[in-house]
């Protein structure tokens, strides 16, 4: 992945969360406070502005700056979680204008660790972790099996989608949805859904 692809990915992610903002908000209305779509759109609009305004020399830097923008503009649970994830992801990548598949695997781990450290969610808690973790596993296994980026990204996106859908039956134990107790079951988690959109964006921009 080079700087241009990193930027292309984030722009595609921005488009995706903007296009689906109403749907994300609808999901968040059912089990949360109805702001996830607005939050993500605001955050990724800020990310886009940073991408527009900055000359990047390193891939990692693209994600660090994007993460910082998310922390500064999103608020709520999603801001610190996504922001820290992108920052950790970017900081873990080696310096320079291009990074390899193995670097991406390591960085994805760092991103998930940041989410877990900050939010303490385990798999099954009905959070974005339930999309992120299977996506990471699929990506890592694909890379281990010799897949190229496009193929690994496609697998990750599929796994994220499956993970997001799997949150429907879960009872939330973290975030606002946990206040609903059993009533959170039957609804798809908004954060898991936006995570899926971000992985899907990578699959889309790398698709042959």
């Amino acid at each position, binding site marked *: 992945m080079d700087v241009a692809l990193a930027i292309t990915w984030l722009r595609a992610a921005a488009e995706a969360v903007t296009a689906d903002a109403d749907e994300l908000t609808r999901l968040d209305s059912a*089990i949360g406070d*109805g*702001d996830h779509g*607005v939050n993500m759109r*605001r955050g990724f609009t800020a990310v886009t502005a940073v991408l527009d305004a900055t000359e990047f020399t390193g891939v990692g830097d693209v994600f660090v700056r994007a993460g910082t923008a998310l922390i500064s503009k999103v608020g709520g649970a999603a801001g610190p979680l996504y922001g820290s994830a992108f920052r950790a992801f970017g900081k873990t990548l080696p310096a320079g204008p291009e990074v390899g598949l193995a670097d991406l695997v390591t960085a994805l781990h760092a991103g998930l660790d940041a989410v877990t450290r900050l939010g303490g969610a385990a798999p099954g808690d009905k959070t974005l972790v339930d999309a992120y973790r299977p996506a990471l596993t699929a990506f890592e296994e694909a890379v281990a099996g010799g897949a190229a980026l496009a193929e690994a990204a496609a697998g990750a996106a599929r796994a994220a989608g499956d993970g997001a859908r799997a949150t429907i039956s879960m009872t939330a134990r973290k975030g*606002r949805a946990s206040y609903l*107790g059993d009533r959170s079951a039957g609804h798809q988690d908004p954060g898991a859904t936006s995570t899926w959109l971000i992985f899907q964006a990578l699959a889309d921009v790398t698709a042959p």
Partner: protein
Amino acid sequence: MKKFINDPADVVAEALAGLAAAHPGLRVNAGEQYVARADAPRPGKVALVSGGGSGHEPLHGGFVGAGMLDAACPGEVFTSPVPDQILAATKAVDGGAGVVHIVKNYTGDVMNFQLAAELAADEGLSVETVLVDDDVAVENSTWTAGRRGTGATLLVEKIAGALAEEGGKLGEVAAIGREVNAASGSFAYALTAGTTPAAGRPGFDLPDDEIEAGVGIHGEPGRRREKLRPARELVRSALDAILDARPLTRGDRALVLVNGLGGTPLIELYLVFGEVAAVLAERGVEISRNLVGNYVTSLDMAGLSITLTKATDEMIRLWDAPVNTPGLRWGA
């Protein structure tokens, strides 16, 4: 959606402009998005900073002033503020004696305040955090996000604010805030959902004879849906839930807040306060001080919360101390 707004995206900024125009005693920083006392920083005084999503007015911006908060950081509607604005507010009001962050226990609020506190520490400021988690409708557990911060936030801000105003040290101000929180329990009912400007429609729909019990202040559904019952019965159930979690026994004294969630008329709040007073009288609990009105709201949600705080002499003394804010004023 029908609201007195212009563009939904501008609601928070434009309401802040109105707040600034209405209250010369406040300094509203539009760029960094915080509200501070005009006379801040006050050298040697512990500063109190709170914040959270907008839509809970007068909380928090309406509680900035002498004897209560030094600054408030409003986020977007129902969205916690970001670390940058919390940091800016913290630095703006620090008078050298440290800053207490009063944080309602929501994942987003906790994380954003935590990031801000780390950044503030990096810059050499002393920050103590008081977490408010009084909502007994949520079963507490270390395996969940825990209890929500709701009505007790007002009591924590008022009482800790009074101690700071009279010269309390950082640790003391944080300690009394935590003590008030630990002594408080709240329970809320919603008759209708509120509508955020961004979502444009109510967070949930309720049939005409059902209510949500155990709601928070963010338009989310509650713990359970029930049939509407007479106020008398709803009050008994709410007090049972609160007193289960925060026992008050014969001879104890309580601070009582009957708080409207934004769309419930005062006449109903007073009626409910009458029911609360009757139940507490039966149980031999004395109401030392009370507050009835819209203080910790959830936009236009029709609903109310009841908060009981087991009171000490010190809490009552600090409750009675002068306060001069847009939303709460006495002795000044």
